[in-house]
């Protein structure tokens, strides 16, 4: 239940409430959500399609969450990643980390995003006025992931 790969949109407030339900030991909740931007690498983007590797995506996300729980003293994690065709301003990904203190929650949330960007098998294709194109992996994402080694 901590990881979902789905076409449907998600409700950030409801997901936070569900993760914290019945708990009184959580002092810090760090959340990240990623959205479709209407411009990327200088071109207008009017739609984005996310392809994934069913089965492996869930396993990869579960593994990333497990690594975060080993590295930091955190209490609960929720990850949702959407697939299929999305429009600008649509939500793509959600990571919620609940912990006792903010340092761990922030670090684990950022770690999960950095690892997700380089290790979870999703691929973005953008529709632009110049046609459809696969998004290139960014060196900045490799650097971001490498700093946790």
């Amino acid at each position, binding site marked *: 239940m901590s990881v979902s790969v789905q076409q449907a949109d998600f409700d950030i407030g409801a997901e936070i409430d569900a993760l914290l339900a019945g708990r009184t030991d959580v002092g810090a909740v760090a959340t990240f959500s990623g959205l479709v931007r209407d411009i990327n690498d200088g071109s207008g983007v009017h739609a984005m399609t996310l392809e994934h*590797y069913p089965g492996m995506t869930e396993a990869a996300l579960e593994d990333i969450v497990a690594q975060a729980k080993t590295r930091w003293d955190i209490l609960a994690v929720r990850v949702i990643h959407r697939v299929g065709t999305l429009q600008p301003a649509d939500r*793509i990904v959600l990571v919620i980390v609940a912990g006792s203190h903010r340092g761990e929650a922030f670090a684990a949330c950022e770690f999960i995003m950095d690892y997700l960007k380089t290790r979870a*098998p999703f*691929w973005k294709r953008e529709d632009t006025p110049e046609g459809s194109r696969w998004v*290139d992996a960014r060196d900045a994402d490799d650097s971001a992931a490498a700093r946790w080694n």
Partner: protein
Amino acid sequence: MNIKVLYFAALREALGSSGETLELPAGVSTLAGVRALIADRGGDWDRLAQMKNLRAAVNQRMAEPETAIADGDEVAFFPPVTGG
């Protein structure tokens, strides 16, 4: 032995194939061996040899060239991931 091979994203489109069942000849026992076997078909398949940043998974886990391949394995080839 037989394995299942999958292709994703830009590689899938370039090959015009999302996957196949492959019978491995004797002597092919690593991920690198499978990659070379497919690339040696030539034509579009040569992309598997040319793609410097090709990524691969064995049984849905990220794998290295030396990863061993066994009968019934699921092997996937794809470009660097771009989710999130």
